[in-house]
Structure formats: structure tokens, C-alpha cells
């Protein structure tokens, strides 16, 4: 792992975290208001982010042979599977209960939203249990 990559990730994270705090997505109340159709601002957050990221992801690999500081562009590969969709359904249930998703849980801490530590700790625990179960499945069916 090059130092440049770590530096880029850190700077990107700072922008990401600042954007999350600026958009007030680090406030679970705002997320819950969106999910209960009282304030549709979250659609603008997602829309703004996707509007900027889409041309980057689509055009850059065609314009440049490689990223400025690395050898290849990463790819987001998702598969249509029961895991992807079932997991998304579960993720939504959790998001709807607490109003917290991974990015804002982490960025919110920096913005002084300490109660989010509860959500962040619970997320880490949930991720552990998921990996624990998935490890057992991999033993039972290694090719999956």
C-alpha cells in the first residue's frame, strides 16, 4: 500500500465527511424525516453525489489509461443474488429503525455526535456476525 494511496484516501474521506456533515446526513433525525416523507432532502444528497460521480466513473477510464497515482481503476462489481437483495432489505430495515448508515455514523463522530458511537459499535458487531456466518457457509460450500 503506497503512502500516496493512503493520503488520497484520507483527503477523500475528509471531503466525504465534510459533505455528509454539511448535508446534515449525520443527523439521524433528518434521515428519519426523509424516510417518513417529511423532507425529501436526502434525495438531493444522493442525486448530487451520483451526478458528479457518474461522469467520473464512466468517462475517466476512457480518457486516461490509469489513475494519476496508481496502476488501474477499481470497479464496483455487484451481483444479482439473494445475498445482495436480501442484505439490502435488511440494511434498509436497520437504516429505517435508527436513521444511521455507515458513512454518517463515522463522520458524525467527528462532528461531535457522540451518541452515534452506539450505532457504530452495533454496526461493527453486525458486520462481525455476518462475517462469522459467511465463514461457516464458506466451509460448507467453498466455491460460493
Amino acid at each position, binding site marked *: 500500500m503506497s503512502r500516496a494511496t*493512503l493520503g*488520497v*484516501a*484520507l483527503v*477523500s474521506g475528509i*471531503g*466525504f*465527511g465534510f*459533505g455528509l456533515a*454539511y*448535508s*446534515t446526513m449525520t443527523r439521524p433525525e433528518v434521515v428519519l424525516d426523509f424516510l417518513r*416523507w417529511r*423532507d425529501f*432532502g436526502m434525495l*438531493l444528497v444522493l442525486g*448530487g453525489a451520483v451526478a*458528479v*460521480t457518474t461522469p*467520473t*466513473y*464512466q468517462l475517466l477510464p476512457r480518457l*486516461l489509461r490509469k*489513475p494519476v497515482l*496508481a496502476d488501474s*481503476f*477499481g470497479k*464496483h462489481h455487484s451481483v444479482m443474488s439473494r*445475498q*445482495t*437483495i436480501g*442484505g*439490502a432489505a*435488511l*440494511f*434498509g*430495515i*436497520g*437504516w*429505517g*429503525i*435508527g*436513521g444511521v*448508515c*455507515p*458513512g454518517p455514523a*463515522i463522520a458524525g*463522530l*467527528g*462532528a*461531535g455526535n457522540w451518541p452515534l458511537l452506539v*450505532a457504530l459499535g*452495533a*454496526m*461493527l458487531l*453486525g*458486520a462481525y*456476525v455476518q*462475517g462469522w456466518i459467511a*465463514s461457516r457457509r464458506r466451509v460448507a460450500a467453498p466455491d460460493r
Partner: protein
Amino acid sequence: MVHDWFPNGAAHYLIGGVLIGVAVSFAFAMSGLVTGMSTVFSAAWSYVSDRSFFQQARFTTSRQWRLALAAGLVLGGLLFVATGGSAFQTHVSWWQLAIGGFIAGFGARMSNGCTSGHGICGLASFQLPSLTAVVTFLLTAMIAARIVALIGGT
């Protein structure tokens, strides 16, 4: 009409979203990184658990930059407050944060993506499974949020 949809104004939502998009684009342009957030949890566990799921190369080879990204998120939140943004502490009940956080953490890792992974990176990559995931979690989240309100949640 617009006022009804955005009772707290619209500009800060859009500006925040664009900033996030710029940050995600920066990581991609400079180092080719695809910056979904939830993977950092599995990647962090790869340091302490030898279970086979956590020891996959996709976690062990990316865990350093993913932790740097997470550290940046905290610093970004800090920078927001340091530059005059108002700090805010949630009043959502602790049981909602705990139960919701656990299920969201489990589900995001099972689905291999969350609001940023499927929502931003997946949609921007024109991935149909990600679009399906986004529609699915928006739907279940809206139902869950209504039920929580009905049973006396925040």
C-alpha cells in the same frame, strides 16, 4: 410545492451531495479507489479475526486505505464544526441506534454495499444489482421508519 418537499431548504443538501461526489471522484481519479463505506467494517475485522470470510484478499489488501478513508470521515466532520458548522447530538433513542445499527451493519455487509457502495458507487457504475439494492433498501427503510414511529420511537 418545493417548500413542502424541502421544509428546511434544499441548497445545503445539494451542496453536501456534490461535495461527496467530488470526494468520491477524487479517490477514483487519483488512485482508482471505489469508496463504498461499509466494507471498512469487514476490512477492520480482518486485523483481529482469522475467520475465512474476513481473510479474503479484497479486505486484507484494502484495509489500510479503507481505515485511512474512515479516519478522513471523522476529520471531515471535525473540519465542518471547526469552520463554523453547528455540532449536533442526536436524540434518537439508544435502542433504535443499537438495534438499527446492528441490523444495518449485518445487512450492508451481506449485501456488500450500503448507501454509498450501492447508492453512489453502484449507481454511477450503472450496476443493475445496485439499483435493485437501492430501491429495496429505500422501500424497507421507509416501512421500518413508519413502524418505529407507530410503536413510539423517535
